[in-house]
């Protein structure tokens, strides 16, 4: 699947990435109330993105994964231009993108939304939707609009008779095809797809995934694929970027990332995937707690309150993305696999299920202040009814980690 991608570090520097974000941040300022002013409250800004560096290489499918609230949709909107970043810069093909985009820049970066029921105007027929775009961006002369519309529908697997139909006449999967047709009608270079298959049934998902793969081949599109379903991501993408609370915490090629996750959050995500192969959910380590509030980002590493490997330094050091040892492929170090964790090097060969990376007497294990789960796990656990913390009873089972440690 990844035969077409040119993905090692060297060739990426030769050709500028089709889209590059540098230090992109987005803060939403909340209105300050009188009470806030009296209390001198500082919880008035939501940090959705905080210094995001990301590049989308030509012809690749890059997946952006993370929990809800991690900022992945905000980043997608910043890249497509519907949200203006509060800091940082964007470059398309090596040239800076201004906050106010011209028609041509706008044309080159197109978006497909999650829900095809709400992203299509119910009162505009498919034909007039497409012709409006084709004329506005002067893709083809007026006389060829109809032929071009039919060609585009053909690309997404719809028939000519769809032209006169309205969105309500189509099923969910077909609507998503129409949404994709709308995006590719203006001949973009970049497609940003925000959870494009999450609202669809399983059997339909596969047809849309197949469509994305085919369009990438036929039209040479570069695709940024925002998703939370890692099985889908693994299937479609060449590289994966993992987001947590407004930051990118790990980037690597897909196989490499899933084989050799170096950020504890990536590990937790992978361990959380429901699987067809594993026996039962209880056999695996669960990440404790909920994501922290983006109003109140933890000091130091933003993942440390939930991290099973956190040490004292994690509370004060805010790690930047740095290269980590690569397990797969021939690519040398450098930017082939980057992770933002001060313990990334230690975590390489540690199976999180068999060996907690922290020594039992490590002070990090007894840090009640940073746990989001019950601050007093002992009393809850002593009553037989309490849900036992997952770690101890999971220690002897590792059904899915046999292939660890191939580095």
């Amino acid at each position, binding site marked *: 699947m990844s035969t077409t991608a040119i993905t090692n570090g060297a060739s990426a520097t030769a050709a500028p990435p089709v889209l590059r974000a540098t230090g992109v941040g987005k803060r939403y300022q909340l209105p300050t109330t009188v009470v806030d002013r009296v209390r001198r409250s500082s919880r008035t800004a939501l940090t959705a993105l905080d210094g995001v560096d990301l590049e989308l290489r030509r012809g690749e499918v890059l997946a952006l994964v993370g*929990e809800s609230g991690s900022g992945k949709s905000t980043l997608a909107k910043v890249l497509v231009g519907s949200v203006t970043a509060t800091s940082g810069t964007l470059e398309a093909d090596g040239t800076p993108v201004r906050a106010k985009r011209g028609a041509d820049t706008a044309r080159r970066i197109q978006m497909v939304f999650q829900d095809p029921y709400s992203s299509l105007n119910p009162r505009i027929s498919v034909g007039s939707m497409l012709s409006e775009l084709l004329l506005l961006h002067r893709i083809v002369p007026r006389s060829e609009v109809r032929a071009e519309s039919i060609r585009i529908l053909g690309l997404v697997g719809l028939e000519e008779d769809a032209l006169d139909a309205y969105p309500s006449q189509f099923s969910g999967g077909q609507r998503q095809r129409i949404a994709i047709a709308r995006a590719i009608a203006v001949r973009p270079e970049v497609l940003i797809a925000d959870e494009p298959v999450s609202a669809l049934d399983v059997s339909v998902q596969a047809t849309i995934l197949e469509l994305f793969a085919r369009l990438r081949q036929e039209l040479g599109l570069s695709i940024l694929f925002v998703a939370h379903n*890692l099985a*889908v991501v693994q*299937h479609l993408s060449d590289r994966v970027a993992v987001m947590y609370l407004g930051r990118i915490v790990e980037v690597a090629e897909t196989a490499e990332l899933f084989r050799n996750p170096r950020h504890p959050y990536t590990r937790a995500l992978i361990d959380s995937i*429901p699987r067809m192969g594993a026996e039962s959910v209880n056999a*695996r380590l669960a990440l*404790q707690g*909920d994501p922290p509030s983006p109003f109140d980002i933890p000091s130091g590493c933003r993942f440390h309150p939930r991290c099973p490997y956190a040490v004292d330094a994690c509370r004060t050091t805010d790690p930047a993305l740095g290269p980590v040892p690569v397990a797969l492929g021939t690519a040398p170090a450098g930017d082939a696999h980057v992770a933002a964790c001060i313990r990334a090097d230690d975590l390489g060969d540690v199976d999180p299920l068999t060996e907690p990376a922290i020594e039992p007497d490590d002070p990090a294990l007894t840090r009640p202040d940073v746990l989001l789960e*019950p601050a007093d796990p002992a009393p809850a656990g002593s009553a037989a009814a309490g*849900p036992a913390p997952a770690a101890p009873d999971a220690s002897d089972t590792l059904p899915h980690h046999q292939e660890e440690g191939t580095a």
Partner: protein
Amino acid sequence: MEHTEPLLEVEDLTIGIRRRGRDDVRIVEDLSFAIDVGQRFGIVGESGSGKSLTLRAIAGLLPKGVEVLSGTIRYGGQDLAGMSAPARRKLMGPQIAMVFQEPMTALNPVVRVGEQIAEGPRRHLGLSRAAAVDLAVETMRRTGIPDPVRRLRAYPHELSGGLRQRVMIAMALSCSPRLLLCDEPTTALDVTVQHQVLQLIEELCEETGTALAFVTHDLAVVNQTCTDLAVMYSGHRVEAGPVKEVFREPRHPYTRGLLESAPDFDDPDRELVPIPGFPPNVAARPSGCPFAPRCRFAVEACTAAMPPQEDVGPGRTAACIRTHEIGAAVVGGEVAS
């Protein structure tokens, strides 16, 4: 366990809409399954397959206009479908409880969560207010809600999605039901939180011996939470059996199609094979097997009559007239259609 009476027995259940002067719309048709005491049973299907309606029929929460047209839902020797509403309400809570997909819409937004959890025990177990609150705290602790004493006073909007779903589960478990109905309880949650909630449901069911009826569209979730399952398509049960065996060797072409079209994290290189076409409109279902128009194994006989439930192994059935022919070849390769 096979010799004892099942906890819940659904027989020839038909759910639909009555229409004057025209045929009834039969959304779920002649559905049968049974859940034993302590069994974890999954109902899998795509949207529109009738899986959620089936669960709602068991709980007596069918939407207005939709009703049980025929068949029985037996719980502990009583037929729920024919029972009066007040008698039924007595069962809901202490015997049968339900967890919904969207905790934000299922919880009352203007009542503190502690009160919502305590309501069941007060009404059904006759506890005093103070005793019910104590039980609520205990239940919240069991479901892993941090700092339950403080959280008692929270309103649903003050909690995260994962915590809200835990509150729903705490509500459902507060009267120690014998059957827990779950309607896609984790679909609205993130994977990491989904994992926590599934773990919790599995643990609690194991601990208390509560039986589980778990509706979902996610095959991997069923694989991890349930021991047995029924696969539904267009209101019909097309296959049933132990989860592991059904997934290892599906005997109905639809089950097989579902498995082939879903990406599997443990097998990333497998090619996804979509199922062509769409599910039929339930108001105008084709004659014969409802899956026949999309089935690559369909022959003429498939459209003649509804296929019977064929026995395809211990505890397994498949509603396909060709299951014995194609079943053997499933693992190897294609059967000419």
